[in-house]
């Protein structure tokens, strides 16, 4: 009887792993296809695309598509721009949105519920609806820099960063998370004479690792995938990000191998960032039920 039970357990375990492996394969196949295709000449890539060979490093394998991609477009500049814009926006967004959420949850002030509701209502507005007014505004904003006072933010990093620092979704995530923190901690700190900033910096933020990771990953993905806004505000090649750069590869006769090589290259920062924050992200999903 005990043996049958052990067998059943083993069978269940094997089935579970088989299903998990199958799901993992389904998710990983597009990535494998992308990387393998990036190593093949166009003709072979197209021939292989209808068979399992598309997922295998077979045939005429080389890095020539990568070299060609670097020749066709300033890939390094695009990746640098995206990583810079995304990195700065993520850091500033975490600071600003967490501070805003802190004020909404812990600091008592008149009208905070109404303001929070208004902030959350902005979630239903797609970016496309405000893109043109925003463009017309940033085209005439002043800036004090090394050249003195200038007008217009087009063709700069700041125009890609500043409009995206604060957003309703990130504030909402922090608000939900902060609400679950034990209130006694905050009250005790207030009794001990801690300032709001000290409470924010020394008590709340150290407890917020999982939500910081979640908000960072979500913001990272949104920023790294930006296309419409940078297309509208960066006419100078030196400021363009990776997604606008992808269009360089879609000529009349598309070089699919180069497209795959470029996609493989620009996927690296995303994967690295996700793997770095993976544990905290999963912990956050488990604790808040928020899905990315």
């Amino acid at each position, binding site marked *: 009887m005990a043996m049958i039970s052990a067998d059943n357990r083993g069978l269940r375990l094997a089935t579970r792993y088989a299903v998990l492996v199958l799901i993992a394969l389904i998710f990983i196949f597009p990535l494998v296809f992308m990387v393998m295709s990036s190593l093949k000449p166009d*003709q072979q890539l*197209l021939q292989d*695309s209808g068979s399992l060979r598309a997922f295998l490093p077979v045939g005429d394998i080389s890095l020539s598509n990568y070299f060609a991609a670097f*020749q*066709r*477009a300033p890939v390094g500049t695009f990746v640098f721009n995206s990583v810079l814009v995304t990195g700065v926006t993520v850091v500033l967004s975490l600071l600003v949105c967490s501070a805003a959420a802190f004020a909404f949850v812990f600091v008592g002030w008149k009208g905070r519920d109404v303001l929070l509701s208004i902030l959350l209502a902005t979630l239903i507005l797609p970016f496309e609806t405000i893109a*043109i007014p925003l*463009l*017309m505004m*940033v*085209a005439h904003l002043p800036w004090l820099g090394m050249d003195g006072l200038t007008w*217009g933010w*087009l063709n700069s990093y700041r125009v890609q960063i500043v409009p995206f620092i604060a957003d309703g979704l990130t504030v909402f995530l922090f608000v939900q998370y902060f609400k679950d923190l034990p209130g006694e901690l905050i009250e005790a700190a207030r009794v001990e004479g801690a300032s709001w900033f000290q409470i924010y910096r020394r008590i709340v933020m150290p407890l917020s690792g999982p939500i910081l990771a979640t908000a960072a990953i979500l913001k990272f993905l949104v920023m790294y995938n930006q296309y419409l806004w940078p*297309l*509208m*505000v960066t*006419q*100078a*090649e030196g400021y363009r990000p990776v997604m*606008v*750069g992808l*269009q*360089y*590869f*879609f*000529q*009349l*006769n*598309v070089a*699919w191998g180069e497209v795959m090589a470029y996609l493989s290259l620009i996927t690296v920062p995303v994967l690295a960032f996700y793997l770095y924050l993976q544990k905290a992200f999963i912990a956050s999903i488990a604790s808040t039920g928020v899905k990315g």
Partner: protein
Amino acid sequence: MKMFTVAASAAILAWASAAEAQQTLTMWYHGAGNEVESKIINQIIADFNGSQSDWKVELQSFPQAAYNDSVVAGALAGNLPDILDVDGPVMPNWAWAGYMQPLKIDESKIADFLPGTKGIWNGQLYSIGLWDAAVALVTRQSYLDELGLRTPTLEQPWTKDEFMAALDAAKASGKFEYAFDPGMAWTGEWYPYAFSPFLQSFGGDIVDRSTYKTAEGALNGEAALAFGEWWQSLFKNGYAPATQDPADRDGGFAAGKYAFSWNGNWAALNTLKAFPDTVFLPAPDFGNGPKIGAASWQFGISASSKHPEGAAAFIEFALQDKYLAAFSDGIGLIPPTKTAAAMTEHYKPGGAMEVFFGLSAAQALVRPVTPGYVVQAKVFEKALADIASGADVAATLDAAVDEINADIEKNGGYGH
């Protein structure tokens, strides 16, 4: 030593005042990512900048797929360059919207240009192209021989019946997956560029060109209905695939999947490499004369340019035969003049693609010259895709007419 100092100072002053005197002109171009195209345009700019001391052109290249959106955003932000390039059929919209100003160049210099290269709206020249593009019915001489088909010529193209008989013969041979590849994988501008000439050859059109104020009768009249039924029959009767992936479009003909392919001169070199006996046939005549699309990218001046005379000087400079021939040799496009064609490898008399020059001169018809075209093109594309997928022809064309007319009305007739 003193003499040297004075001489050096004078030289520096002279250089500084020359640099100051040279006014910078900004230019936007759609060729980012195309190495050959970028090299030629940069060469023209370098030659122009070196040829005189009044103007200095600075180039900003954009990827083609993102170019139009960038120009519209630039116009909204008040940030357009002096010189820009524009896709021929889009030009009337940009002129009407106030993005462009008339192009004042010596028109005797473009008297011999192919008609499709001249961007004329409201009776004024707004843009001029350094090349044109043409579409042909691509097949192999060996296919024509095996199937026992007459080789059509510019003077005597296939009639509708002959074309359908050719498709029937290809289908019956069992040698091909499909008899005809119209290029359904290429969405967007390909539809009106490549397929509206079929409609025009039937006697219909996207919009009534006599007034440009309605599509009624043009897109849903008897000729248009006949075109719609024929278009649907291509897919319903298995002559052509209604859907297609881009890879198949790029390599299907070379792989022997199709007997005939409706394709442009830009793809001709690759096809010739795959099959040296490739032939480029003129469009069939569906009753109202054989037609193909015309007008490719053209140069013009933005309305906000403070130096239109400098911008016009650059555009005139670029119209030299050697540059027209360089674009043609580099990217396979049709040179706009016979003299430039004679200087090219592929379009010179006896060249492998000479036929495209003749096609462009004899069969080309520009797409509707109206600011509303940008909307009409999308409506037309959707209607044709729906009909190919089996939608009711009359109802679909009526709906397309309603949509186009509503847009014309909403925009006050687009100034016509």
